[in-house]
């Protein structure tokens, strides 16, 4: 199994979700993050300039079997893109093992239900 982590624009989330659903990625976990980057919008609080580069982003992550990886990345790359600076990144890493809490299913079976593909 592989873990995909993507940092994307908030405004793109709905599109990304749908694109992933289309290539068979049903379960996604996501949360709000902030990114420090190269942007240079100064914030001023009570006369003091600060924090010149924080932007709001969504981090989403899903664990999937190898065969889903490529289509998922293609879907992500397409649906999350605006072409302007700040579109974000995708990172892939290895998952050694997984469990479905409800059933105790281990390994690959933790991320798909037999007979439901």
């Amino acid at each position, binding site marked *: 199994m592989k873990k995909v982590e993507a940092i994307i*624009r908030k*405004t793109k989330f*709905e599109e990304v979700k749908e694109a992933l659903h289309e290539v068979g990625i049903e379960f996604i976990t996501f949360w709000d993050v902030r990114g420090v980057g190269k942007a240079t*919008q*100064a*914030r*001023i*609080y009570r006369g003091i300039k600060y924090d010149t580069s924080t*932007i*709001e982003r969504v981090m989403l992550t899903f664990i999937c079997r190898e065969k889903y990886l490529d289509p998922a990345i293609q879907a992500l790359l397409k649906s999350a893109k605006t072409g*302007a600076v700040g579109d974000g990144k995708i990172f892939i890493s290895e998952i050694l093992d997984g469990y479905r809490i409800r059933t105790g299913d281990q390994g690959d079976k933790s991320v798909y239900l037999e007979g439901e593909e």
Partner: protein
Amino acid sequence: MEETITTTAPAIAEAAIGLDISINNLWLLLATFLVMFMQPGFALVEAGFTRQKNTANILMKNLMDFAFGALIYWLIGYSIMYGTSLLGGLIGNPFEKFAFDSSGFGDYADYTDLMFQTVFAATAATIVSGAMAERTKFSAYLIFSVVITLIIYPISGHWKWGGGWLDQLGFQDFAGSTIVHSVGAWVGLAGALILGPRIGKYGKDGKAKAIPGHNLTLGALGVFILWFGWFGFNPGSQLAATGNNTIAIGKIALTTNLAAAAGAITAMLITWARYKRPTLSLSLNGALAGLVAITAGCDAVSPGGAVLIGIIAGAILPFSVELFDQYFKVDDPVGAISVHGVSGALGTLLVGVFSLTDGLFYGGGFKLLGIQAVGVLSVGIWAFGMGYILFKVLKATNGLRVERIIEEEGLDVYEHGENAYN
């Protein structure tokens, strides 16, 4: 109960008159404070129904439209609205009460009158803000907010409350369903049309998408505050609290409350039937729709009539929101056009139906209804037309809409350099 002054005790009589005036003045001043408190109500509704990234911008707009409104209306708006009619009742003399400072009194102190009128003017201006939220340039906002308080609101206000042509025609709008609420909404409609929808509001297939508000607790608190403030808005518009006004203000409080309640319940039931579940956001709007609708006739209809007006306003609200949002594709984040425009027009027309003295249902025939329609239309054309011209000019000069990246990342950071939440 109005006092009759006998000639045998002039000093005491004078004292009694004085108290009468003092009571009215006290009442009107307290009503002014209640209406002023509607400002945070509007701010919270708008902030709650929109996204977190634009909250500082929304708060700033609501602070500033009240601040500019207070200055501008004092300086000249009041005079345009309440100066002696010029041009056959089209406008008040703008210099008569310029930079108003008069310690006279009629039924109450002149200062109190200015204050009461000021908070009404600010209400009209602030309504526009909601319809154009999340994408309007702050500098443009300031400019048109000033123009509304300076010109658009006072002139059509003069037509009715300044004793202008609509008033002479017999048009009835007790506390301003049309004169205050609709004016704001029609200007907002022009603005929303010219601005276009927020990015992501309509899919590639043209379908409307939900952009949920970031904090409905704030939205609900705002609606409760507005409901509370409306007890200054409507009963206060009786402009007196003694003599027969004693009973009138109690009655107006009742009709106002019943219409709001009926509006909230009806909107809830409609959403329950239509979307399977009773939804909060539209029920809150329903309460406001009832309040706006009863504003024109709160003095003239019976309690039962008020309930009916609330039901009609609450029933139409969800459909009106869908209509503008999904069919006309006018992106109005807080529903201001439906709540203040549609409901305001509706409530004004319904005076012609439910008025106990000359409404259609009470044997008054179609005459009043016709006059009401003239008022609704003429004010609507004025406000929408002036708004349209204003926004077109702004678009061509100062610019009206923020850049794409600002809208996406949030107006707070780019327009104000500050986040509301940290």
